């Protein structure tokens, strides 16, 4: 049996989800954003929420998320995505409202909005891409940058006496009464991608429950190979060796 005999529509087991359109994404080769976009598209398709999903796109690398997934989107001011999601969910309570934010957006300029939206127990999902750096603007130090990690604004490594410590924002969020599901996942292997997909699915299903039981928060520990100045493969290895120590993978809260 030749390869051409196998490549028939009836034998198809995996392909790009329909909601992810054919526009070439602007992300760097090997960027974790692409995988998470694909997971969101797959989960929305599986839940049949194509007409009910409203995404809030951030400022950062994912600012053009609305160009790639064919659902309704709203662009928010820098860091204000959870505030906007609150308004949309309160006005349209039967919709799936989620934000998609990076660490510069969620953990730096938008810390107040994030913490207060979660503390109010809004029925929204927050997808948080944590790559420990400001990717879009050229790899500057972020609040989530690890101690000793080199970036363009701390070329000798993050000095804790001057710049403080990395901010484990999911651990803070998990302590709030207003959250019901807080988890930290990654997308560097096929097994990890499957777990991350299950986490995103659970978060989205939580949001569609009519009762307001609290916010769902999914952190994805990601790579930024351009900002870290590594190849995509090396960035994945570096992430497993260094990032997972500071940001251990697993559920922080599941109620």
């Amino acid at each position, binding site marked *: *049996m030749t*390869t051409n*005999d*196998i*490549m*028939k529509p009836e*034998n*198809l*087991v*995996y*392909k*790009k*989800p329909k909601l*992810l359109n*054919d526009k*070439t*994404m602007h*992300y*760097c*080769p*090997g*960027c*974790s*954003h*692409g*995988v998470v976009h*694909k997971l969101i598209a797959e989960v929305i398709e599986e839940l049949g929420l194509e007409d009910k999903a409203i995404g809030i796109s951030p400022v950062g690398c994912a600012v053009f998320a609305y160009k790639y997934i064919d659902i309704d989107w709203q662009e928010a001011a820098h860091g204000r995505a959870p505030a906007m999601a609150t308004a949309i969910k309160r006005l349209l309570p039967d919709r799936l409202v989620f934000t998609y934010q990076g660490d510069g957006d969620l953990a730096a300029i938008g810390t107040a909005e994030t913490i207060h939206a979660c503390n109010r127990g809004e029925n929204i999902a927050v997808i948080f891409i944590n790559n420990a750096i400001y990717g879009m603007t050229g790899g500057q130090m972020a609040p989530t940058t690890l101690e000793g990690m080199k970036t363009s604004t701390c070329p000798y490594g993050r000095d804790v006496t001057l710049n403080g410590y990395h901010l484990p924002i999911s651990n803070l969020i998990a302590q709030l009464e207003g959250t019901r599901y807080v988890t930290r996942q990654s*997308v*560097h*292997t*096929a097994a990890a*991608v*499957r777990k991350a997909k299950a986490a995103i699915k659970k978060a989205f299903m939580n949001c569609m429950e009519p009762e307001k039981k609290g916010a769902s928060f999914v952190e994805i520990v990601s790579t930024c190979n351009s900002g870290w100045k590594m*190849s*995509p*493969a090396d960035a*994945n290895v570096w992430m497993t060796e260094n990032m997972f120590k500071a940001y251990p993978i697993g559920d922080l809260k599941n109620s």
Partner: protein
Amino acid sequence: MGKIKGAVEVNTNRCKGCRLCVIACPSKVLAMSKQVNAKGYNYAYMENPDACIGCASCAIVCPDGCISVYKVKIEE
């Protein structure tokens, strides 16, 4: 006993040559082409198509959704 055979189809114009699929493949089927696509990236292709088991690991880790996976069970 039935034997599983797979095949992958890479959308070469969409591929950005990040090599993550080559690393994810447990059967060492994929490799990077010496040719480049319209954007100048070396794209992934099936170097060793007979070894493919259709597990879809390559497609699952692909950040750009370039890979479609096909699988058949061959009865002997």
